[in-house]
């Protein structure tokens, strides 16, 4: 309660002409309290729920239970460093006060969605959660492309959001919010309606493919601390809704729902990372990776439903915990990466990947944090991304163990897909690290870049520390997360993950072993520098023209996956007097979902609107004729007994 009050105070403070820094600090303290109190009580110490339980009526009610506590903690872990960062990031920015107030409001709505205990406050907070970032984006910049991005964001999330309304209102109508058994008693038809509406509605907001098209447009144009909150928390709050429906209100979810979620997860993880790989802008690349990671979470959730339908309670709980752990981990490293991207943007301007280079030397703190975040998202041990991907993979492998042929095959395909996703993510982040941090600077602004101010550094270093800590001791968290599953499983609480049916993930020892061995080898090698030499280019000097580009590095993969990605390339050669004067190359990988799915839908919608417009003549007489016609038809129907 106190946390919420402080957060509200921080939101209002900028209007009262208080200092922006103080307001943001107030917000940070508020959200920390909210996360700490709620999460600490409900998740780690297993206290009974605080506040109201779910109800179907119209009276607003708030409350915290285990799942809410977990999401509040995730919110706090991301929001506190983001707000610390924003203190310096927004200093000197015109309309910084408005940004400050809006980020506070955004946090309130996020917390509101997860603590709402009645349909009205849930839906109200849900809609505000969509609108506030749109306002923030438009406040930052309002040129045509940004306006277009915001339009697509609002259009797609509202169209998809209809699913959320249908789902929540149907649940409230059948009294299923307060009594989880009520929906199943209504029969399969209603349950199907609710589950489909939930997958479409919450899936759109979470960025699951193919409903993701707004995400890569909207996330990159927001201010970085808001991007961090959008990617880190907002899309997770959508997953919170999906989890509530599938595992609580509409539980037990049917088998087909599990397979659908698994399939969408596979599509999102592979599709998201593939399109991330061919992006040229750092923030857009990060946005596509959010789709990938939401897909990985969905794989865990799908596996959990499949296990539950097979009656394997412990594994259902493990898969559920894997999904939650990945939600937390992704929130941490994606927020870190967005904050670092914002710091880079502030220092050098454009984030065109092919024109950065060499920032590790110039911005060691930000660069180091970005490196840690990249390794975490690439899923290499001993960082946190590996821990949750390991657990998800183990769940999928155990789905593949059968006994039923169909599910076993689905599990094996998902396992192979997730393995390929992990390899692609590694590919993508090696590229990002190389192009942003390593090598020589590729334009003058980069060469003159200076390190970010202290508040921004602090936020990023805190998140990098979280990446390492969560990677070192996931086993302390997973048993508590398993408690949140519908059928709680039992696992020893130790830093290492000791899961039966696996060889266990001894993460603290891995970290220790890697650091000790690498240190030992470093001593053996001798830390003195080698002779300075130029890199080998067959005797040529390495010039800027020889620098490898993002497109060059991913070319082998583009060629291999030509049939899937359909890249376009154009080479224009200018010749004069038989001599080649210049060669221009342009290439792009069109986003197939936009060109092949949304394009036709949009075109046919517009064509349909044109046809519908024909009857809108504007003449009063025509409308009177329509009314008369309608009346006649109705009378006819009453006469024949079809209605009335």
């Amino acid at each position, binding site marked *: 309660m106190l946390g919420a009050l402080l957060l509200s105070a921080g939101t209002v403070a900028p209007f009262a002409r208080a200092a922006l820094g103080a307001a943001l600090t107030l917000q940070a303290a508020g959200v920390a309290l909210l996360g700490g109190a709620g999460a600490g009580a409900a998740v780690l110490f297993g206290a009974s729920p605080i506040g109201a339980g779910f109800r179907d009526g119209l009276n607003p009610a708030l409350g915290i239970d285990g799942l809410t506590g977990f999401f509040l903690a995730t919110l706090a872990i991301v929001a506190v460093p983001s707000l610390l960062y924003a203190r310096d990031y927004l200093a000197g920015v015109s309309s910084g006060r408005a940004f400050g107030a809006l980020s506070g409001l955004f946090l309130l709505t996020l917390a509101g969605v997860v603590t709402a205990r009645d349909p009205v406050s849930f839906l109200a907070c849900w809609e505000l959660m969509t609108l506030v970032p749109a306002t923030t984006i438009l406040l930052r910049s309002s040129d045509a492309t940004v306006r277009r991005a915001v339009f697509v964001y609002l259009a797609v999330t509202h169209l998809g959001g209809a699913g959320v309304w249908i789902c929540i209102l149907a649940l409230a109508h059948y009294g299923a919010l307060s009594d989880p058994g009520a929906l199943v008693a209504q029969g399969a038809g209603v349950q199907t309606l609710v589950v489909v509406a939930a997958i479409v509605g919450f899936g759109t907001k979470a960025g699951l493919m193919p409903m993701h098209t707004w995400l890569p447009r909207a996330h990159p144009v927001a201010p970085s601390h808001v991007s961090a909150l959008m990617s880190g928390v907002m899309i997770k709050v959508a997953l919170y809704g999906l989890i509530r429906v599938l595992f609580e209100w509409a539980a037990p979810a049917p088998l087909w729902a599990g397979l659908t979620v698994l399939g969408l997860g596979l599509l999102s993880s592979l599709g998201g990372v593939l399109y991330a790989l061919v992006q040229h802008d750092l923030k857009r690349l990060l946005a596509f990776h959010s789709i990938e990671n939401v897909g990985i979470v969905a794989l865990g959730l799908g596996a959990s439903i499949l296990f539950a339908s097979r009656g394997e309670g412990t594994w259902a709980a493990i898969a559920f915990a894997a999904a939650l752990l990945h939600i937390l981990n992704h929130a941490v490293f994606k927020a870190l990466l967005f904050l670092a991207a914002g710091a880079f943007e502030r220092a050098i301007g454009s984030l065109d990947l092919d024109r950065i280079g060499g920032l590790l030397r110039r911005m060691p703190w930000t660069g180091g944090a970005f490196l840690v975040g990249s390794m975490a998202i690439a899923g290499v041990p001993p960082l946190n991304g590996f821990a949750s991907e390991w657990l998800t993979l*183990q769940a999928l492998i155990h789905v593949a163990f059968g006994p039923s042929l169909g599910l076993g095959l689905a599990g094996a395909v998902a396992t192979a897909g997730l393995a390929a996703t992990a390899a692609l993510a590694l590919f993508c982040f090696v*590229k990002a690290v190389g192009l942003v941090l390593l090598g*020589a600077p590729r334009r003058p602004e980069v060469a003159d870049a200076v390190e970010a101010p202290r508040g921004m550094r602090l936020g990023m270093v805190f998140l990098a520390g979280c990446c390492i800590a969560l990677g070192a001791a996931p086993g302390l968290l997973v048993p508590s997360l398993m408690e949140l599953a519908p059928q709680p499983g039992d696992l020893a609480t130790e830093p290492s993950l000791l899961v039966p*049916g*696996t060889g266990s993930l001894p993460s603290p020892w891995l970290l220790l072993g890697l650091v000790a061995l690498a240190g030992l080898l470093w001593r053996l090698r001798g830390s003195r520098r080698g002779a300075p030499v130029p890199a080998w280019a067959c005797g040529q000097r390495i010039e800027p023209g020889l*620098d490898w580009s993002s497109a060059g590095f991913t070319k082998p993969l583009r060629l291999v996956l030509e049939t899937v990605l359909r890249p376009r390339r154009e080479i224009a050669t200018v010749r004069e007097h038989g001599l080649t004067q210049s060669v221009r190359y342009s290439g792009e990988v069109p986003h197939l979902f936009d060109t092949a799915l949304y394009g036709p839908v949009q075109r046919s919608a517009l064509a349909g609107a044109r046809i519908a417009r024909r009857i809108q003549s504007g003449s009063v007489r025509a409308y009177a004729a329509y009314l008369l016609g309608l009346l006649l038809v109705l009378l006819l129907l009453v006469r024949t007994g079809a209605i009335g």
Partner: protein
Amino acid sequence: MIALAAAIQVAGGLALASLLPGTVQAFKARLQGRRGPSPLQPYRELRRLWGKGLADPQPTTIVYRLAPCVVAAATALALLLIPIAGLSPDWRLGNDALVLVGLLALARFALAAASWDTGSGFALMGSSRDLTLSVFAEALLLLAIVLAALPAGSTDLVAMSAAANGSAPWSEPVHWCAAAAFGLVVLFETGRQPIDNPDTHLELTMIHEGPLLEYAGRDLALLEWSAAARHWIVLVLGAELFLPHWGGFGPQLACLVGGVALLCAALALTETAQAKMRILRAPALLAGGCLLALVGLVSWLAGGSA
């Protein structure tokens, strides 16, 4: 016995690993009618490199200098996960197959990042190809692990090795499919033909050698050792999980030695008989392996053995 297994894990991994690429090269030379270098040649190379000075391409950062140590540390830890003749002492690292995959991925990340640091086109060409192929190879490796883990019901390498003990597994088609799939992984991870050519001196054709081009001295020695240790990891793992072995520790150890020698000979034979494939064709080969693995899984699930 467990002490002997531990000794082989550590000492064998450290000292004997370099023998494997040496043996393959010696076999290959014989098959091609040459006398060839002795199997001990890699040791001489390591000794020579250890005594040489380092080179620092400009402008590189700590990432380039630290990469060989990270690669070697990750590979060395991976050595400790692999059971020897069905036994592995408790190093507190567990014996999980996926952790092994993760450690190999860490080594790949470090080396590819180092190539970006040098900015050298040849290094980047090598790592971009390596990473492209690794997408397919990792999916294949995971499927092979799933198949090998089916009888044991666990991804614990010790349990998987025990489940492959005896002749019973060979009556299941899934075991054959898994062995074939893993064979392709071996070709990729060891950087052998038809996927990569370890003998090439032409930078444009390099995959695994490319990122090593800039390194010299002890850095290069660490990387060369890591490449040899990767041979050890996949060949010993292949013999433990996918080649016949029987009985207790003694007979299994004999089977392991024989199996690894057999695999070395098989690699030499493939390299002699098979030309290098076009790089863009290799993913199709690996994807074909994935299909084979799925067929194996179907045979297992449909057979109702679960």
